[in-house]
């Protein structure tokens, strides 16, 4: 054992050991070993730092090197969804000012439904099998909304308009903050990821916001039309955009670009200040944030080593 050898060395070369403790190790001094038994290793202090110190440390193994163009492309879904929400708010404000009447709203609804379905059919083959099933579901949903719309007419009659705007805005901000931008909460059958808690919360926030806005409208048909429009967009727009993205990335980029242009044009017609804010927000999300992320990525320092808690990979 190491201890026995050390004992012999110490008795035979006592004077040499005493004077050469801090000098270049002579052949008689045993090697330092990284062990915690056997007490003090002869010739070495307790605070001796061997050359093998920290040699098992691994740095930055899981860090991904990011490319500016790729990060900008990945930020497109966020700005695209921002534009969609901006369009919905636009339609709400036009309806509340009675610029849009209920018939045009109904036409928009049917148009949206048709085009959404078309996109889904073109980009995903498995949906074409259950067309009747989906048609039945849609008709149940629509008739249910129509039957329930008188309830919403008097829902917030006793609440002042300011509270309604404040609650709606905060709910929409919550919705945007917690939204799942990578996929869709309502997934196509056979999708891999389950919806997370935050994406469910964001979906509920958007639905409640649209109910609040709908309750401010004068007649039943108005309420039905606006609710149908809002729910169509909030429930199915993520699914449609996800299908487009999966089908063809270039189509996704062009679609987003077109959407952004259309949104900015409409908002510009509505109110100049909001146009500036929206433009600034889109530039921030698409250009400033990726640059910032890449700049601070170089400070990342991930440390792994034998001291890490073991990860169990059990069923």
């Amino acid at each position, binding site marked *: 054992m190491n201890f026995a050898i050390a004992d012999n060395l110490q008795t035979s070369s006592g004077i040499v050991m005493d004077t050469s403790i801090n000098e270049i190790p002579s052949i008689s001094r045993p090697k330092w070993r990284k062990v*915690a*038994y056997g*007490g003090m290793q002869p010739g070495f202090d307790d605070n001796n*730092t061997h050359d093998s110190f920290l040699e098992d440390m691994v740095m930055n193994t899981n860090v991904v090197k990011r490319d500016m163009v790729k990060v900008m492309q990945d930020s497109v879904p966020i700005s695209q969804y921002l534009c969609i929400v901006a369009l919905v708010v636009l339609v709400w404000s036009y309806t509340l000012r009675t610029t849009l009447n209920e018939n045009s709203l109904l036409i928009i609804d049917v148009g949206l439904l048709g085009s959404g379905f078309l996109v889904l059919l073109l980009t995903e083959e498995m949906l074409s099998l259950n067309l009747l099933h989906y048609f039945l579901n849609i008709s149940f949903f629509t008739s249910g909304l129509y039957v329930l719309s008188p309830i919403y007419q008097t829902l917030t009659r006793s609440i002042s308009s300011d509270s309604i705007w404040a609650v709606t805005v905060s709910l929409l901000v919550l919705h945007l903050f917690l939204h799942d931008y990578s996929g869709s909460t309502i997934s196509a059958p056979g999708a891999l990821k389950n919806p997370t808690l935050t994406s469910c919360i964001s979906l509920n926030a958007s639905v409640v916001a649209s109910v609040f806005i709908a309750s401010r409208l004068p007649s039943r048909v108005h309420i039905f039309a606006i609710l149908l429009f809002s729910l169509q967009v909030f429930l199915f727009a993520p699914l449609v955009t996800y299908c487009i993205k999966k089908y063809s990335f270039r189509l996704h980029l062009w679609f987003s670009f077109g959407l952004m242009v259309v949104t900015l044009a409409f908002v510009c017609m509505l109110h100049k200040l909001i146009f500036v804010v929206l433009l600034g927000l889109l530039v921030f999300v698409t250009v400033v944030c990726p640059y910032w992320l890449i700049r601070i990525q170089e400070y990342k320092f991930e440390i792994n080593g034998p001291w890490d*808690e*073991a990860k*169990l990979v059990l069923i």
Partner: protein
Amino acid sequence: MGDQEIHRVLMVSDFFYPNFGGVENHIYYLSQCLLKLGHKVVVMTHAYGNRSGVRYMTGGLKVYYVPWRPFFLQNTLPTFYGTLSIVRTILIRERISLVHGHQAFSTLCHEALMHARTMGYKVVFTDHSLYGFADVGSIHMNKVLQFTLADVSQAICVSHTSKENTVLRSGLPPEKVFVIPNAVDTAMFKPASERLNGNEIVIVVISRLVYRKGADLLVEVIPEVCRLYPNVRFIVGGDGPKRVRLEEMREKHSLQDRVEMLGAVPHARVRSVLISGHIFLNSSLTEAFCIAILEAASCGLLTVSTRVGGVPEVLPDDMIVLAEPDPSDMVQAIRKAISILPNIDPQVMHFRVSAFP
């Protein structure tokens, strides 16, 4: 070291008796050893339930149970200057010359070290656990540790892996960190006077049954080993949140006569449980220095353990069989241990462990 200067040491930690664990034992035994050498030791900790005030323990060890309420996992509420008056009173009244803080997770320790350095006392810190770098709690704790250890005189770690971990977390120069492993009382942990019968192999597990100590691994390993070796019996001591899973496993595989669950084992009875076995199984996922395997080796058991943290450094290679923290690998290690078991002599093992100075 020929100076006979008598030091008056203050040990500070949130963790002391009546709470039971490795840190508490370490502080107590270290204090007893220092008292035997002629130094004076005072321990400062927070009040446990009704136990508050000043108490005297064996050998004249004075313990201050400061009347502060613990708020999270036996830690006192961290108020930066709230402890200053009591710490100053104790330091001046006992004429302390050296302050020794234990365990990075203890808020009382950090505050006392900070106040002691403000007043110019010499300060030593001992770290007993390994911590990560990535989650929010660890990041916060490492920042506090950097702050406290910026000015410490020396630091002590219990194993070389722990030294690397502490140096990385706190930014201390490595020369300031001393590696002084924990010790076991070999007089208390003696093997059985007569050998156990050879036709049955008993594997002992004593640990807190929590996730950190690998209770999930045990749930996978025990049925497999019982299936492969009909003459193997398990004794599982200890209690915790994962005990339910072990009981379920026992019911599911009908191992009631082959797996014995003892519940929480008081420290005085640990030796009697250990000497009833041949092999000690340790499945923890992270350990700075596993004192349990040293106790098991002192009682003459062959150890099978997961290769994590500081465990590979604790025992020589012929007293321990290491495995990756994976059920199949652990079963292989138990197979190897069973095959080398006939060559193990408990008295020789105990003698070797007690020869570690």
